[in-house]
């Protein structure tokens, strides 16, 4: 009857179905597989003459079999660049290794278009080991090329952005350098019978420094000078430096007395910054130079607020601090005490002003120690008796030797009377 146990699947039937499927697959003959494989095949003689080529590759290139087999060489299918690469790299390596794989080349299509491909080849040898022919597979790399091109475009865009960022940064640094320079005098005015020398070390080109110095004429005879350090870094510090410099110069012209000038500066800064929620202040040494043409001596009167004491180097080879104890930071309190001091520089004597970048430089193992006052005094004592530019030059070398231990701006100002010994004077 029609419907009996046949409704139950017979295991033998399942086997038969599978057999039929494999039989269908076997219809995919070796020949058909070669001709219509999803990659290009070709075989060439050792001189490159094409002996066999499959339909897939002929289709890709838009070529007729008769025009190719026995008539063209593999290199004839390549673009000019591909041809050159084949001659200089592909063929020599294939000869050396008997196989080569994954080479990116370009093939010419009949319509003039270029087709990026990945090529692999092996040499088939005869029974005696002699090379017989070259078998080559060709994979379509168009999608891959498009992907690579996209990656390259992205990389070029990223590089352009980086170049732009670098240019912006360079412009900013240039602007900062100009601004920084505007906070310091281009050159110091000549002071009769006096030599001066300066140095400014910038810790970071990105951060506007806050050290400053100046020397300027007060009247027909006397000169004012100052050197200091404003708190903080960056544009606000630069604005404070600017305010400090012009206030000190104006105050000095009004009343050259050192304590008076610093007191005026203190009032101005406190007025400007107190209650702003952003206390700002500076340290400063301000003083006057009074040359005596008759004796060749230079009378120095100075005062300091919150600043490390200046050093006097004597012609006799000694050096010592000129203490100004108790001078307060300028600008933190409505009224502040400043301490003054006087000295007279004779021939060969030099007055050295510096900011604390020098004494606070980190030294020693692991940069754990600070350079300190004592070390500085010992260092400059060795240069006592030398003219200002020589002292500043020695200190510049010292600053350089700190390397990355010097992480703050440092200003140096040396004021000296030339030694009477002409030989020493000629050192200038």
């Amino acid at each position, binding site marked *: 009857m029609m419907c009996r146990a046949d409704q139950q699947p017979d295991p033998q039937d399942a086997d038969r179905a599978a057999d039929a499927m494999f039989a269908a697959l076997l219809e995919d003959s070796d020949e058909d597989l070669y001709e219509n494989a999803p990659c290009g095949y070709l075989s060439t003689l050792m001189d490159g003459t094409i002996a066999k080529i499959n339909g897939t590759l002929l289709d890709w290139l838009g070529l007729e079999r008769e025009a190719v087999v026995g008539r063209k060489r593999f290199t004839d299918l390549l673009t000019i660049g591909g041809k050159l690469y084949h001659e200089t790299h592909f063929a020599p390596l294939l000869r050396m290794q008997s196989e080569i794989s994954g080479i990116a080349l370009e093939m010419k299509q009949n319509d003039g278009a270029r087709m990026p491909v990945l090529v692999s080849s092996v040499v088939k040898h005869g029974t005696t080991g002699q090379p017989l022919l070259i078998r080559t597979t060709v994979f379509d790399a168009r999608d891959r090329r498009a992907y690579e091109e996209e990656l390259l475009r992205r990389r070029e865009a990223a590089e352009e952005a980086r170049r732009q960022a670098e240019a912006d940064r360079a412009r900013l640094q240039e602007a900062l350098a100009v601004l920084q320079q505007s906070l310091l005098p281009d050159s110091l005015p000549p002071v009769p019978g006096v030599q001066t020398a300066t140095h400014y070390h910038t810790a970071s080109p990105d951060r506007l420094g806050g050290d400053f110095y100046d020397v300027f004429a007060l009247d027909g005879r006397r000169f004012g000078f100052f050197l200091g350090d404003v708190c903080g870094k960056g544009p606000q510090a630069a604005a404070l430096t600017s305010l400090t410099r012009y206030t000190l110069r104006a105050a000095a012209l009004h009343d050259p007395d050192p304590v008076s000038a610093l007191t005026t500066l203190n009032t101005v800064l406190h007025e400007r910054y107190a209650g702003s929620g952003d206390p700002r202040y500076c340290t400063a040494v301000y003083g006057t130079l009074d040359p005596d043409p008759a004796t060749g001596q230079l009378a120095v009167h100075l005062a300091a*607020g919150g600043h*490390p004491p200046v050093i006097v180097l004597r012609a006799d080879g000694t050096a010592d601090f000129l203490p100004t104890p108790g001078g307060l930071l300028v600008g933190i309190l409505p009224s502040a005490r400043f301490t003054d001091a006087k000295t007279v520089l004779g021939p060969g004597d030099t007055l050295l002003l510096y900011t604390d970048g020098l004494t606070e430089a980190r030294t020693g193992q692991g940069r*754990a120690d600070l350079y300190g006052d004592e070390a500085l005094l010992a260092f400059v004592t060795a240069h006592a008796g030398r003219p200002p530019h020589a002292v500043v030059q020695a200190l510049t070398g010292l600053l350089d030797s700190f390397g990355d231990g010097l992480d703050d701006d440092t200003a140096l100002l040396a004021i000296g009377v030339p030694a009477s010994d002409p030989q020493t004077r000629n050192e200038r």
Partner: protein
Amino acid sequence: MSPLKITARAAATGPVLELAGELDYANVAELHGALDSLALQPGQCLVLDMSGLEFCDSSGITALIAARSNAQAVRADVVLAAVPPNTLRVLRIVGLDQIFTIHPDSESATRP
């Protein structure tokens, strides 16, 4: 270099901040933050215990001045305690040793 460590505690006289490690440009914002979160009351005295402070640069000095002016704005006071010799030297140079009351240790600073 050791990082800055700030520990806050309360004493009868007011808050105490213990500062340890190195106080500089890179981490001074932490101290400013700690000071801002204190909420000092009028009449209180903030004690900055510096016994563990290994280094204090000008940024640290600025923070001390800010602490003082903020305290004065609410009629409170700030004192320093156990200032290490290095920092004391800096305070002397900038004249702050005359502005701040400096105690040998936080115990004497917090004595009512």
